[in-house]
């Protein structure tokens, strides 16, 4: 779960990390008023969950009220990579001599957190990591002990941070790690961490992504989550509880519903393999009950690109009879089934499920390959 820059900065600032003076604005008038209060130059920054805001025109530096008005007007409401900008952060422009990078994330390869420091801030750090990996000092953290103070110093000195600001940067890294740990961070980054001419360090941007699985113990952060990021289907998916990664919209015509990420991905791959094109990834998860199945079907039907739907369930925790009931329930609402549905059930209670399924409403196939081929054909027919 992603925090917006302004939210992340609030959390960082509360923990004692220096941030520039700033305030959120939702209207042009608000933005200009705040900019006037702060004093120019200020930066006007779109608050959306997409990378590369700057290049896409989502950040503008302005020198007076008039420019502030123009910039706020341009940015508020603009479309950034599919997301509508609803608010901007109006922020004191920092006069910097250096841009650093500090970050904390989980290194899944070793199962341990890693703290990172680099003098190459202000640019895409993934590119730095690819082109010049030694430019980033990395310190793996023992999760039982947390970050030792010496590790923060080591990362900072190894990265070649100037002696004048080394202590401050180490202390910011320590704070960032502690926050990351206490608040169940997935990624925490300050990029750039700006250094001013008089050796002060300021977090000019802030990224703080939270582990979605840990939101139950971070209720205040969970409240900051901005669902319904713009796309109507994603909003609906959220509403139905198909959070983030369980529903991914793509641009094909075969709607795909299944249980278990690997199986659903494989279904997508098979659709492609048989000449079709997947409209979405939708994993209803383990142990889904009838209502969840009905919701899944409604969600995929709502996608106007979808011409046919393939339902692929291999039951372990999930029971075939529950799925069958869900499909029947969902389809019972329609006088006419809007799009052909091909169902394939296997595993736990699959036979019971097959018996329950109303074959007037759905086409039943015995194997995955047959089901996918049938769905691809059905979608092709619609388009023919």
């Amino acid at each position, binding site marked *: 779960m992603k925090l917006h820059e302004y939210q992340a900065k609030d959390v960082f600032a509360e923990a004692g990390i220096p941030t520039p003076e700033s305030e959120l604005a939702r209207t042009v008038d608000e933005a200009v008023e705040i900019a006037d209060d702060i004093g120019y130059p200020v930066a006007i920054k779109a608050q959306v969950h997409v*990378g590369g805001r700057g290049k896409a025109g989502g950040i503008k530096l302005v020198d007076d009220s008039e420019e502030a008005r123009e910039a706020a007007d341009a940015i508020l409401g603009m479309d950034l990579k599919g997301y509508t900008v609803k608010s901007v952060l109006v922020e004191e422009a920092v006069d910097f001599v250096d841009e650093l990078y500090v970050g904390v994330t*989980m290194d*899944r*390869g070793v*199962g*341990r*957190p890693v703290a990172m420091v680099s003098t190459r801030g202000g640019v895409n750090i*993934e*590119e730095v*990591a*690819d082109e010049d990996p030694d430019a980033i000092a990395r310190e793996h953290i*023992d*999760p*039982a002990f947390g970050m030792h103070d010496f590790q923060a110093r080591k990362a900072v000195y190894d990265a070649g941070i100037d002696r004048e600001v080394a202590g401050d940067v180490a202390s910011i890294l320590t704070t960032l790690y502690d926050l990351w*740990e206490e608040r*169940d961070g*997935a990624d925490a980054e300050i990029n750039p961490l700006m250094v001013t001419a008089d050796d002060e360090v300021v977090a000019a941007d802030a990224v703080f992504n939270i*582990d979605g*699985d*840990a939101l*139950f*113990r971070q209720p205040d952060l969970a409240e900051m989550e901005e669902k319904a990021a713009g796309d109507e289907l994603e909003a609906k998916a959220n509403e139905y509880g198909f959070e*983030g*990664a*369980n529903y*991914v919209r*793509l641009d094909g015509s075969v709607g795909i519903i*299944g*249980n*278990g*990420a*690997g*199986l*659903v*991905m*494989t279904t*997508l*791959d*098979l*659709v*492609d*393999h048989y000449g079709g094109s*997947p409209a979405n*990834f939708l*994993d209803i*998860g*383990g*142990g889904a009950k009838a209502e969840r199945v009905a919701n899944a079907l409604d969600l995929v039907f709502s996608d106007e690109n979808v011409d046919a739907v393939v339902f692929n*369930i*291999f*039951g*372990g*925790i*999930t029971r075939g009879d529950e799925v069958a009931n869900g499909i029947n329930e969902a389809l019972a609402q329609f006088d006419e089934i809007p799009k052909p549905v091909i169902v394939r059930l*296997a*595993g*736990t209670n699959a036979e019971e499920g097959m018996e329950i399924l109303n074959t007037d409403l759905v086409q039943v196939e015995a*194997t*995955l*390959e047959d089901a996918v081929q049938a769905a691809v054909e059905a979608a092709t027919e619609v388009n023919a």
Partner: protein
Amino acid sequence: MSVLVDSDTRVVVQGITGGEGRFHTEQMIEYGTNVVAGAVPGRGGQEVEGVPVYDTVAGATREEDANAAVVFVPPAFAADALFEALDAPLDLVVAITEGIPTQDMSRVYRRLQETDTHLIGPNCPGIITPGETKLGILPGNIFASGNVGLVSRSGTLTYQIVDNLTQRGIGQSTAVGIGGDPIIGTDFIGTLALFEEDPDTDVIVMCGEIGGEDEENAAAYIDEHVETPVVGFIAGRTAPPGKRMGHAGAIVSGSGTGTAKSKIEALGDAGVPVGTTPDDVAEHVETLL
């Protein structure tokens, strides 16, 4: 023979009084699993499906000689349950629970390194030695006893491939669902090593997916250490970069790592044929037996 579990495995079910715990305990017993105890704090002295419940895992191991655990404890309490299982100690812990916070698993993994316990999962379907025992939620009826070892990051995809194998009359020695989370216990390499040592595993099926570098690392390991023929499968060939698909680990990063292409190539370089469909995998296996 088999790896990790057989009919002698004595199982304690952590979280046996919950809905899933109870249901799958029944299923496991029905399959023939030797479920000797349950462990739920505050529920000691009760019985579930005829199985005695203890307040602590230590009690269950002391009184019932359990040597393996299956964990159905909800995410908020799962890490504590895993620490308890590792402390008991047990030879094998199978964590079914999905949605354990990653930092919790990082700490569990840290402790795991100091033990001799095998942890399977979390967020996994479990492990089965067909005809002998199953620990987890795998649907027993699709499996058949035989000589193919199967290891997979995915749950239901495992069932799919097993089904394709069984349909062709190919049985399995042991099937291990290692789980799809970013941090898991025994990984591909650990499981491959076990199958390599097992005289009754003649072919190994390794079923991976996009995200991370585990498949690439496993390919290198196979190249160096595995004599037993391996057939691969990789889910997510059509997944677009930057979109996480279900599993927390299943994402092709912006910088291009974790792609199906890279994994399939690595496996190919290690001499591992990679099936294009689940049934294609079964067909490859058939030719190798």
